[in-house]
């Protein structure tokens, strides 16, 4: 397949191979250097090309200069020749050797010995020829002084002239006059033919003049020489002639040639008749002058031509130079223009790219040239708008995704809210059920405690959570004895609550059977161990109290020992056997212990919810606080004492979350005087005109002495909950057994007032304590209600209802207070600084 690669593909590849070095070089140069490099190469090439031209012109000029110098030298030599030739003719006569001619010759000799020629001149033999001329000349001079031999002088003279002629020819060669193609014939004429003609013309006449036969042949030979010279002279003259021939050279030459003809005629005549020699002499003399004049004129013409040529050469040199400089300037100008334009385009491209990269996405590059950079700019603009479009698409996608996400989040939020609502409803339902379970649990615990002339008892259980595991119980046994207990189921919550209910039933059932405390616990243990699927257990302390002698029999199943406070304020732990909790394993036995309560003694049963009540700093209430409280508190009534204990623990704990159920049972054996006083009290029949309005806090009970004319029928403390009112009603019914009609009215009034207090005075706060006390004299029943609510007088603040209104108009409020006022004989309300005190009086008269 590789052989089938098309030539069009391979050719660029080959070109790129060929161009690799150049492109390598280009890749390493900036644009400015590239332009500089190319421009330099072009300029150097131009210079190299024009160099030979200039050099040739220079050489030509040099040659022309040399030729001109040759012409100058020729003129000088011709003058010397002229002198020598004329001297030879004066052999026989006067010696007219002038000092000027001699000086000319000396100068010529000096020049020939060391000719000052430029280096371009070809090598010559001028010095040798000059020496020869010198010798010939010396010979001639020497000859002149010795004797006057005409023939010898003639020969010597001729030798000298011949040497000069040779020198002239060599001088012509040395000045390159023979090589100039345009003037070679002319120079031949000037350096050779014309001097030869001059020499020959005179020699012919001189030889004839000597009248020697030997010399006659000279004249004849001269004729030959002269005739031969004619074509050469014509040829040389041809080169010198200008079209207009201002100098009249042609005419001069024709004149010379015709004169030579005439001289030959004269020579022929002389040869025939030597007497005509005199005719010849002026002709020859004039011819010589003519030849000399022609030589000078021709030399001048040749020099003029050379001068002209030189001028032309100089001009052409200037032209080439100017052309070169012009070309260079043009190239430089073009390159600079291209460079500036390209650089401007590149700068715009670079700037645009930078701007784009810096985030200005609307950047577009505008290049107003016609070169390839416009394509680059166009491509950039296309890419830029494409990128902008893509970004728009991406942004659109992102926004759409964002919207979708937000929609989903909203959806999920709604679902979550829905679920939360459901959860909330479920939690409310559970809460409700737990609340009713707690009510149930509280309901199964006795709320009424014995408060006889001998003793008073009070117990409470405050669960830490909705459901507690603690419980207490108290019940009457035979022969006036009382059984009571406090127990603590391990654990909390629903399971513990169930176990508590079971345990309480079991213990109560067993206690009814008149068993001793250790037997009750033993049997209860067996029963509870038998049905204990959750492995729960319960600690308990069960006591049997006989009010007649204050004796106490008790047994403990892993429970904290009861505390006994003597009337003197001494507190001691009752001795307990270390028996195990109920429900752990069946078949356990428990030990009975005995104790005795003296008058004024107090017995406290509690669970560890009291000693292990923690404050915010995690400090436990502990046995220390409990004993301290028990020592301090001198409250004779169990109910008030218990309220005080609960408050003491609550004060210690502060706002901390309760950690365990709080359960306690107090048994107070009354002091002997109290019993006597109460039993001996004779009810006074006088109306209770003076009431202890400064009764103070409800925990402060009346001193027995103040009750001289009254019997305390009931002292009841209840939590601020409407459910508690039913228990109060039971107690009232019990306290007023013989007067159910009064009991009904009292209960009605108490409920109305307590509901008012709970709902309006305390705004539904569930755990405040309200104290109710019933006392009687013969005639009057006194009811005192004490709360710790802010000041609140129901008899003033409640509006009176309109009893006559029809069904639609009747308001449901205000009825209660109206009924209280109607049913009671006297109603009053006070605020004593710590709470409201309501006092009701009802006549007992039928």
């Amino acid at each position, binding site marked *: 397949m590789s052989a089938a690669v098309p030539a069009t593909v391979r050719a660029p590849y080959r070109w790129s191979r060929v161009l690799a070095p150049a492109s390598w070089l280009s890749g390493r140069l900036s644009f400015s250097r590239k332009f500089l490099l190319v421009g330099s190469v072009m300029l150097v090439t131009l210079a190299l090309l024009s160099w030979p031209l200039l050099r040739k012109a220079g050489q030509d000029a040099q040659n022309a200069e040399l030729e001109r110098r040759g012409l100058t030298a020729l003129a000088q030599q011709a003058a010397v020749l002229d002198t020598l030739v004329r001297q030879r003719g004066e052999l026989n006569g006067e010696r007219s050797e002038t000092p000027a001619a001699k000086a000319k010759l000396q100068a010529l000799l000096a020049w020939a010995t060391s000719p000052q020629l430029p280096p371009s001149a070809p090598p010559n033999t001028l010095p040798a020829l000059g020496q020869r001329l010198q010798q010939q000349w010396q010979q001639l001079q020497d000859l002149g002084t010795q004797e006057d031999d005409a023939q010898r002088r003639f020969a010597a003279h001729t030798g000298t002239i011949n040497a000069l002629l040779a020198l002239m020819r060599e001088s012509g060669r040395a000045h390159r006059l023979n090589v100039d193609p345009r003037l070679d014939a002319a120079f031949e004429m000037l350096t050779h033919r014309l001097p030869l003609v001059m020499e020959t013309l005179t020699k012919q006449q001189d030889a004839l003049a000597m009248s020697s036969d030997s010399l006659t042949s000279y004249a004849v030979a001269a004729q030959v020489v002269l005739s031969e010279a004619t074509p050469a002279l014509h040829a040389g003259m041809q080169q010198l002639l200008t079209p207009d021939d201002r100098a009249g050279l042609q005419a001069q030459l024709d004149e010379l040639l015709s004169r030579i003809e005439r001289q030959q005629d004269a020579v022929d005549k002389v040869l025939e008749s030597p007497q005509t020699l005199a005719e010849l002499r002026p002709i020859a003399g004039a011819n010589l002058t003519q030849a000399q004049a022609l030589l000078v004129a021709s030399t001048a013409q040749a020099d003029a031509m050379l001068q002209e040529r030189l001028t032309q050469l100089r001009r052409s040199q200037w032209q080439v130079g100017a052309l070169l400089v012009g070309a260079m300037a043009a190239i430089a100008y073009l390159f600079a223009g291209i460079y500036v334009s390209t650089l401007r385009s590149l700068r715009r491209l670079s700037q645009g790219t930078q701007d784009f990269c810096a985030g200005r996405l609307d950047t577009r590059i505008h290049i107003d040239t016609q070169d390839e950079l416009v394509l680059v700019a166009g491509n950039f603009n296309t890419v830029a708008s494409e990128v902008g479009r893509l970004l728009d698409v991406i942004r659109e996608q992102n926004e759409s995704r964002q919207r979708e996400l937000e929609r989903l989040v909203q959806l999920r939020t709604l679902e979550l809210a829905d679920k939360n609502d459901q959860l909330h409803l479920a939690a409310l339902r559970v809460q409700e059920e737990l609340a009713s379970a707690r009510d149930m649990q509280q309901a199964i615990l006795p709320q009424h405690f014995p408060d006889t002339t001998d003793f008073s008892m009070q117990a409470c259980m405050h669960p830490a959570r909705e459901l507690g595991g603690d419980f207490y119980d108290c019940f009457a046994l035979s022969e006036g004895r009382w059984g009571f207990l406090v127990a603590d189921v391990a654990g909390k919550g629903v399971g513990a609550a169930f176990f508590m209910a079971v345990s309480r039933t079991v213990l109560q059932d067993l206690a009814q059977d008149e068993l001793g405390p250790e037997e009750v616990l033993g049997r209860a243990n067996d029963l509870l161990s038998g049905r204990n699927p959750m492995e729960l257990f319960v600690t308990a302390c069960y006591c049997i109290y006989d009010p007649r002698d204050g004796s106490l029999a008790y047994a403990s199943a892993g429970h904290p020992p009861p505390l006994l406070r003597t009337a003197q304020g001494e507190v001691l732990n009752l001795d307990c056997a270390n028996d195990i909790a109920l429900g752990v394993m069946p078949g356990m036995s428990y030990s009975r212990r005995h104790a005795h309560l003296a008058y004024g003694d107090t017995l406290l049963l509690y669970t560890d919810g009291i000693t292990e009540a923690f404050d915010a700093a995690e400090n436990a209430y502990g046995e220390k606080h409990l004993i301290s409280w028990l020592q301090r508190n001198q409250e004779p009534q169990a109910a008030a004492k218990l309220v005080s204990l609960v408050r003491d623990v609550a004060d210690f704990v502060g706002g901390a979350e309760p950690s365990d159920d709080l359960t306690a049972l107090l048994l107070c054996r009354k002091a002997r005087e109290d019993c006597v006083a109460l039993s001996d009290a004779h009810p006074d029949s006088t109306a209770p005109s003076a009431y202890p309005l400064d009764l103070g806090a409800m925990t402060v009970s009346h001193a027995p002495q103040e009750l001289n004319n009254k019997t305390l029928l009931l002292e009841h403390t209840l939590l601020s909950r*409407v459910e508690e009112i039913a228990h109060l009603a*039971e107690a009232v019914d019990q306290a007023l057994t013989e007067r159910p009609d009064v009991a009904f009215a009292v209960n*009605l009034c108490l*409920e109305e007032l307590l*509901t008012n207090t709970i709902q309006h005075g305390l705004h539904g706060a569930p755990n405040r304590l309200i104290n109710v006390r019933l006392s009687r004299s013969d005639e009057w029943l006194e009811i005192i209600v004490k709360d710790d609510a802010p000041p609140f007088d129901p008899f003033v603040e409640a509006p009176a209802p309109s009893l006559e209104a*029809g*069904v639609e108009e009747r308001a*449901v409020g205000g009825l209660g207070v109206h009924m209280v006022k109607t049913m009671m004989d006297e109603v009053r309300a006070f605020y004593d600084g710590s709470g409201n005190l309501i006092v009701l009086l009802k006549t007992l008269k039928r």
Partner: protein
Amino acid sequence: MSFEHDINDEQGTRLVSLKGRIDSATASAFEQATQDLFATPNARALLDFSAVDYISSAGLRVVLMAAKRAKQAQGRLLLCGMRQHVREVFEISGFLQIIDSVADRSEGLRQLNA
């Protein structure tokens, strides 16, 4: 002592037998018992108080509301069997002037079905 109630239909009359204490704590149960008595127009209902030991203003409030609903539904509400104490409460509050009552259940049914 708590509150219980029982509802029967006796010849087109809703007979509500009440028992125990009607006080602040149990009034809500009583209210639920009487809630739907007059859901249909021209309904008739008889509240039997013969086993009620006690009633307070909270209970009176429920009776009053039931009477209002009866009036709106153009139905009839009758109370019967009130013991002396309970009757006194109704009397003191002036309810017997606006709500009809009869001595016992049979009398009540007879009047309502007449």
